[in-house]
């Protein structure tokens, strides 16, 4: 079954309401036109979605299950808790859904090289994996700050054969890596596809990425009917750029009784300036940057603020235009979770259910844990576990203040000095 859903398709020019569009240097005009055409053709080819789902099941490990969580349900004392397990994908996150799809597109278009930006490193690892699998050359741009925080992912990207470029401009995080990719692409487009990692950037990227990530929602809807016997009352997903959220939400957009909740990074708190909450709390404003119109965290003169989150993958200034639109129309509610709440939720998920969500995903858990006690046992909630947490071991061990881990690191380091 092809992922064709009018309710989340953009209008003319790639607009979702007033958000979206394509604001890029003229040099990229024909490139984006070529991509739009290739994507439209692929989508109308009934075999394409089939090739995609085959690759996803034979290589990436789909379908991922929906897991019932009886202990958390007992502990929270409200709605029944279910978790969609995107952490079980090859490379450990939902990123692979998008990357494999765009890889197939690159092949169809005859490109021999891919480039990508990455924040947490998950999208970079997924892209490097795809490039290795499909035989494409691969360059990954990553902010210098993120290279330092997520070095294990850098290691894996390099082992997979990708070139990793540390971006030294701006605040050296995800947004700067996106700018660097757009610049590379402006020179390399004849043989290169930019594999954008989330539902942001110029049209058609938000549409392409939503299309591939919609596999999460399609699966999840059917699985909830099967496993829980009903549609969820609420669906929770964390929102960096918004791809895992868009992916799971699209499955339920036409089910008005299912409430959709996007959870942004509250960082150190909404009043500290150290967060990435664009929609929750109303600090974001409409603007145009990085190729599209959306809600950004910016000052009155349109300069982007620095953002912050304990989860590198949520640390972004913009948000997918589809989500900005669904927020404006009231279809999706936005909340935020602070670093402290997130670490506490991670601890609960590990101790009570043996789940190890990524710090990003733990934002969705945190918001759900806050709200589940107020729901009734007839209700069900579905949390999207977008990725697994082992990549975060350094950050988590720090946040939990684990002394034995520190001692282990000291011993390892001493071993190298000797």
């Amino acid at each position, binding site marked *: 079954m092809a992922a064709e859903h009018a309710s989340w398709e953009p209008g003319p020019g790639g607009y979702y309401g007033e958000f979206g569009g394509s604001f890029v240097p*003229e*040099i990229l005009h024909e490139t984006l036109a070529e991509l739009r055409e290739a994507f439209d053709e692929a989508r109308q080819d009934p075999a394409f979605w089939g090739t995609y789902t085959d690759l996803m099941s034979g290589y990436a490990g789909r379908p991922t299950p929906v897991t019932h969580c009886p202990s958390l349900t007992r502990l929270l004392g409200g709605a029944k808790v279910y978790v969609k397990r995107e952490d079980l994908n090859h490379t450990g996150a939902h990123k692979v859904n998008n990357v494999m799809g765009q890889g197939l597109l690159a092949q169809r278009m005859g490109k021999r090289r891919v480039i990508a930006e990455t924040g947490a490193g998950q999208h970079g690892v997924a892209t490097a994996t795809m490039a290795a699998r499909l035989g494409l050359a691969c360059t990954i741009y990553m902010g210098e700050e993120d290279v330092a925080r997520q070095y294990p992912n850098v290691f894996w990207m390099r082992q997979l054969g990708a070139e990793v470029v540390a971006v030294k*401009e701006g605040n050296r995080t995800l947004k700067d890596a996106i700018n660097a990719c757009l610049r590379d692409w*402006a*020179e390399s487009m004849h043989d290169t596809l930019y594999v954008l990692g989330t539902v942001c950037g110029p049209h058609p990227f938000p549409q392409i990425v939503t299309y591939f990530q919609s596999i999460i929602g399609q699966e999840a809807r059917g699985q909830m009917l099967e496993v829980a016997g009903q549609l969820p009352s609420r669906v929770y997903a964390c929102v960096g750029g918004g791809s895992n959220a868009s992916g799971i939400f699209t499955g339920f957009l036409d089910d008005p009784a299912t409430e959709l909740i996007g959870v942004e990074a509250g960082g150190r708190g909404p009043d500290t300036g150290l967060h990435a909450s664009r929609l929750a709390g109303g600090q974001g404003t409409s*603007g145009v*940057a990085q190729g599209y119109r959306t809600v950004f965290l910016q000052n009155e*003169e*349109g300069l982007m603020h620095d953002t912050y989150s304990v989860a590198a993958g949520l640390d972004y200034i913009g948000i997918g235009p589809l989500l900005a639109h669904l927020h404006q129309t009231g279809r999706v509610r936005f909340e935020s979770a602070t670093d402290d709440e997130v670490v506490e939720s991670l601890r609960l998920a590990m101790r009570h259910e043996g789940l190890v969500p990524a710090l990003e995903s733990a934002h969705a858990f945190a918001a759900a844990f806050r709200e589940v006690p107020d729901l009734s046992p007839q209700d069900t909630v579905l949390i999207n576990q977008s990725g697994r947490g082992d990549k975060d071991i350094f950050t988590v061990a720090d946040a939990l203040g684990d002394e034995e881990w520190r001692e282990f690191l000291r011993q390892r380091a001493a071993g190298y000095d000797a």
Partner: protein
Amino acid sequence: MTHLVVGYPSLDANWSMLQAMDRAGVDLVELQLPFSEPIADGPSFVRANHEAIRSGTGWREYFDLAGRAAAELDLTTLFMGYYNSVVQMGAAQFCEQLAKGRMSGFIVPDLPPEEGGELYAVARSLELDPVQIMTPTNSRARLQEIGRHASGFVYCAARTGVTGRQTDVSQGLGDFLGRCREATSVPLGVGFGIRTPDDIRALRGSAEIAIVGTAGTEVWLEQGLTGYEPYLDSLVAEAT
């Protein structure tokens, strides 16, 4: 046409650069308003944008400098910057500010012509030129489309990519400029990687305006005013 990022390396340096341009007989100057996400710029202008912002250059400093240039110098200035700055000011206020600083128009590289409707209408009412950009990757049909919006002059990007890298002016440029010429009757300006009097000589006959960006700022940074003045003189001598 020459270029500077307002606030980089400093507002004082900008003023000295403008005076030097005026003395050398440069006729058009692009004044770039710094933005935090300059996606059409190469590494040295990216750095310039960020450093200008860090040292506190905002709209006020920008329009003060433009106003002072209009009052004291013989140059024509042009706004260059990113669309978000325009969006936040609002089209009407943006155009009024430009008109007040007697600027001749604007180049906004991340605003495609099909999105320019409202802004272009306000601009025309104040006799400001929305300068369009043509690139070597544009199809003939796209060049025609851009040509329909052309006003003042067209900025022809001499190669693919972002600002700052060297361009081999000989390679395929003539063909491209020929296609631009078919698509519009306004003068053609050529920029991206134009750095030397030789580059300018090579454009003679196929373009009306040579646009020197990154190279000028580099000369200023490396040699200061003493190197900048003769550099500008050598460019202007070739251009006239």
